[in-house]
């Protein structure tokens, strides 16, 4: 095995939780408001259900090869060459996703926190720390995730608590105003922003892979709760219209907090939560892509790939889209369809072929 570290299923839960919150806490409220209006939270619920369902598929697939990652068992299922092609195709998706994540960090930082710093610098800095984490291995990353988790939870509870006075329930009404269709559309987009399939690359490195399924489910569920709360709060505090117009709605949301004229401007807290979660999401993606590539190409040490991939990712992240407008158009419409290939079609296909093959083998041996 290329990775010698082992993580516990508790650590996998924590990583999944941070991974699920990922970018979503910042950008999902706005996307939901655009497509599902005030019913965004229902869309998120449906999306979460879909997510949990796919995790069952992924873990059924991983359960058949508990010691192998997706990049390894695709070769077992489809044969050497076709398997490698599918693995590389899958890895290219993770690679692209990583560059998107980087660009989102760069965009947010240059828009809201560091307007005078060039986006290249913010991305390179972020990438440097990500590379450091990937090189230290999954064990260290998981431990760091455990240390950051209490801060994420505490800050989130803090923000939620101080937003409660500003809630107006009537902003979420009328429910089902436009019927079920926009809600399903929102649910579909929400589902595709989670990319839980990448977490499968970590499952073989848990010390008890049979518990990985419950860890993934628990982590996804808890992470989704955080996102649903932020979507709900955006709708209830800012209203649908305002949320739609704000790219980073929950950041705007945090700006609304004002307690007794001294507790103000706490939006930095939300930026911190988000930076932590997107950091771990990027690390997991980068880790998955280096490990998967090393496994597919039979390299000895995935860490040799970190620096070249980091360089490529920095440039790719600057090229993936021209500006924020194209990002807003691209993410739901194109990216979600693209992601569906990897989140649903490939895993389901692999599972189907593997089930057929094993039943075929059983028939052969019994006859």
């Amino acid at each position: 095995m290329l990775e010698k570290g082992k993580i516990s299923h508790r650590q996998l839960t924590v990583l999944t939780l941070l991974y699920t919150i990922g970018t979503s806490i910042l950008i999902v409220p706005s996307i939901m408001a655009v497509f599902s209006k005030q019913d965004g939270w229902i869309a998120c619920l449906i999306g979460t259900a879909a997510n949990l369902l796919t995790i069952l598929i992924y873990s059924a697939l991983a359960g058949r090869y508990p010691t192998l990652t997706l990049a390894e068992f695709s070769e077992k299922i489809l044969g050497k060459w076709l398997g490698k092609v599918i693995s590389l195709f899958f890895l290219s998706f993770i690679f692209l996703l990583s560059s998107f994540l980087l660009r989102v960090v760069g965009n947010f930082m240059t828009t809201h926190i560091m307007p005078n710093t060039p986006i290249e610098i913010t991305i390179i800095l972020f990438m440097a720390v990500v590379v450091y984490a990937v090189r230290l291995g999954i064990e260290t990353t998981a431990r760091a995730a455990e240390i950051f988790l209490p801060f994420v939870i505490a800050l989130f509870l803090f923000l939620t608590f101080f937003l409660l006075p500003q809630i107006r329930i009537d902003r979420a009404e009328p429910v089902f105003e436009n019927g079920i269709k926009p809600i399903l559309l929102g649910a579909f987009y929400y589902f595709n922003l989670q990319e839980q399939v990448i977490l499968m690359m970590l499952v073989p490195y848990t010390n008890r892979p049979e518990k990985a399924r419950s860890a993934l489910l628990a982590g996804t569920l808890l992470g989704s709760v955080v996102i649903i709360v932020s979507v709900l709060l955006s709708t209830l505090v800012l209203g649908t219209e305002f949320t739609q117009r704000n790219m980073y709605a929950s950041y705007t949301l945090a700006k609304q907090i004002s307690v007794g004229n001294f507790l103000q401007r706490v939006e930095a807290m939300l930026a911190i939560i988000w930076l932590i979660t997107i950091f771990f999401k990027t690390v997991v993606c980068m880790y998955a892509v280096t490990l998967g590539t090393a496994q597919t190409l039979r390299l000895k040490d995935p860490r040799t790939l970190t620096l070249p991939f980091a360089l490529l990712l920095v440039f790719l992240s600057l090229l993936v889209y021209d500006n924020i407008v194209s990002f807003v158009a691209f993410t739901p419409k194109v990216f979600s369809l693209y992601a569906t290939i990897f989140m649903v079609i490939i895993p389901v296909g692999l599972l189907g072929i593997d089930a057929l093959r094993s039943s075929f083998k059983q028939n052969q041996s019994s006859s």
Partner: protein
Amino acid sequence: MSQIDIATIKEKLGYSNDIIFKEFQIDYGGNSRKVNLFYADGLVNTDSVQDFILETLMVEFPKLNTNQHPFLDLLTAGEIEEVTSTDTMYYNLFSGHVILIWDSNKILSIAMNGIKDRAVSEAMTETVSRGPKESFTESIRTNTALVRRKIKNPDLWLENMRIGKMTQTSVSIMYIKGIVSDKILEEVRNRLSRIDIDGILESGYIEELIQDSAYSPFPTMYNSERPDVIAAELLEGKVAILVDGTPHVLVVPALFISFMHSAEDYYQRADISSLIRILRFVGIFIALLGPSLYIAITTFHQEMLPTQLLIGLAAQREGIPFPAFIEALIMEITFEILREAGVRMPRTMGQAISIVGTLVIGQAAVDAGIVSAAMVIVVSITAISSFVVPAMNMSISIRMIRFALMGLAASFGLYGIILGIFALVLHLCSLRTFGVPYMSPFGPFIAEDTKDTLFRLPHWAMRKRLRLISQNNITRGNNKPPGPKR
């Protein structure tokens, strides 16, 4: 053994005049035997040499019918051994033994240690308001005795070795058999036996030679000069390394969190200790991030400050010629110089430093228009906060990292600080101390072991030892919440 030539020994010792030689003849077994006796003056107790060796040999021997007794039994001294190698002879000579060469063919080494030790005194670096006041001394024997007095149990084992080709310093490993993890113990033995150096003058030498991460700013070995601390660590299943010649005893494995604990936390009430610990963590947070947050906010994120405070700060900074970073750097370095001067300078000049100190970090600096008053406050509170870290070596690490974070804050604002903290936490999580993850019980999280970390539960609630450290016997006691018997 072949003939031992006293002249060779004298030559080997370079005729050093602190080695006292004495030669005489006595009657034993009907023959006249030559006795050569020598010792290092100052290391042995000369009165004892006079009373127990010279008196016995020169006065009592001729009176006795010495043939009936083996010679060794007749000497009235406790620790006598016959040595065969000259290396051991020299080692014993400089450990305060009297060397007696019998008839030019037998070397006897008689322990007569009489070096003037410093008395057991009050701990200088780790002070407590409640708790034992004694501290270790420079003598390893006194130190082991101080620990033994606290743990009166045959399972408290001691292993001795000599390290340092020239200094031959005695180094002892102390642990409680049955509680200590064999893996950790074996690791300590291995690492100590690998040391190849000419001299060990302080436990810091050992620490640098056997610690886990040579390039980490964080200490992965704990040291203390308090016997009660060492006893407590031994009870947790850790291994103590005592080095002759220093009052600082090393303890491994050392978790990050144990550097934040003071001995007094365990002697005060649990609730008070817990609150004080939280206060300490606030202090550490300020010590680490104080100046960098100030730099980041005043340089990049002015919007985060309330308007009135912002106006006040801007007015103060109006006449200041430097950017906030340079200003902070000047003040921080001035403070570090003051602190260093305070440590090095003769005690009698303390007054001078405090007067000058208040001038350079104080109103005079503000009046001169070099720094703003707010910066003076930030630097002062940071300085004070860095002293709430009970362990000196951890406090130094935090101070070093503070400068790195200040640089990040000056270039990249809060973003830089956050990324710096990411890297810092990742680094901490990657460290191990003798096989145990440095950040445990938080990373990896072990719920049961967190009862003595950020807070401290009462002693009756701490029923188990840390799981990752003591794998053998983890039950400390089985107490119920106290109260009258029901």
